């Protein structure tokens, strides 16, 4: 239910309860109604007050939750989706690199079996390409650090949602030991912007900002 609709429902409920309370006051003060009705009216008034108290607590619980948990859950889902995509892309890069490396090993085997005039030069070239390919495979493993940051950030946001749920549970008078332990955990810091996407553009933007700041400081 949207937050504005919740607010409307709470406001309408409180207004109706105030009107009921006002009517009950008038009936209780009316001498023509007699003793039994007065007792009933007192009970209804007490019930009305307790219902109003429950509504205030629900209102505070709503404030404790706010809109942030929904946004954080959405962002967590986005981060987790990106992690899945990044790991799949990295796995394919590594497998493609291994395929190419295996092809180069086959080429070295052929050169060894059928020596040619410039075979030594060709072997050296293939070995150089093989080393470069193996190095590229190592470079692809950077995805592990990036996805670690993304998972950490998603976990941090979900931890914040958990703390808010715990705060709301406490307001409503319940207890939730598991939520308490999550709420008490300190959150390490993760890079919110960690990503394997558009690294060329992000590096270029960083370089431009560095250059602009250096130029500005040199001029001042």
């Amino acid at each position, binding site marked *: 239910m949207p937050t504005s609709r919740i607010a409307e429902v709470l406001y309408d409920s409180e207004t109706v309860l105030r009107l009921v309370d006002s009517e009950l006051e008038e009936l209780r003060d009316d001498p023509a109604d007699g003793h039994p009705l007065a007792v009933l009216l007192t009970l209804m008034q007490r019930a009305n007050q307790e219902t109003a108290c429950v509504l205030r607590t629900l209102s505070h619980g709503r404030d404790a939750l706010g809109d942030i948990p929904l946004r954080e859950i959405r962002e967590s889902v986005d981060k987790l989706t990106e992690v899945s995509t990044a790991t799949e892309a990295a796995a394919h890069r590594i497998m493609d690199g291994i395929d190419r490396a295996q092809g180069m090993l086959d080429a070295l085997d052929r050169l060894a079996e059928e020596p040619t005039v410039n075979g030594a030069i060709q072997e050296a070239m293939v070995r150089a390409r093989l080393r470069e390919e193996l*190095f590229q495979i*190592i*470079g692809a*493993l*950077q*995805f*592990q*650090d*990036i996805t*670690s*940051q993304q998972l950490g950030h998603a976990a941090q946001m979900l931890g914040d949602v958990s703390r808010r749920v715990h705060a709301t549970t406490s307001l409503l008078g319940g207890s939730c030991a598991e939520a308490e332990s999550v709420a008490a955990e300190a959150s*390490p*810091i*993760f*890079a*919110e*912007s*960690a*990503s*394997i996407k558009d*690294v060329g553009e*992000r*590096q270029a*933007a*960083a*370089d431009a*900002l*560095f250059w602009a*700041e250096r130029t500005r400081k040199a001029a001042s």
Partner: protein
Amino acid sequence: MRFLVVDDSATMRRIVVNSLQRVGFTEVVEAADGAEALEKLSGIDFLITDWNMPKVSGAELTRAVRARDDSRGLPIIMVTARSVRDDILTAMEAGVDSYVVKPFTPQVLREKIDAVLASRAAA
């Protein structure tokens, strides 16, 4: 030239060390966080550090290095997954000489190292 590579991820330290070796720098020392790095600065000619680390972050490490008489002029490159504007400005204000966004290539790292050394030589 002796490098100090600082990153809490053992995988990333291997990749950075591998990249440095790939582009011709073979003398490399490693540290797993900023606190350990501060203890290993002696004899270091160039510092390459991550940002998000336990105990002492890369930005805090940079400020500490710049505050010490024996390491104030040490060349520093931040290699990090952080790439928003505020982070880059924070790194600059802390005192880094250059900034490399992860994931990076050895060629980019070499370009930044060369640029920092050339800038120091020209100054």
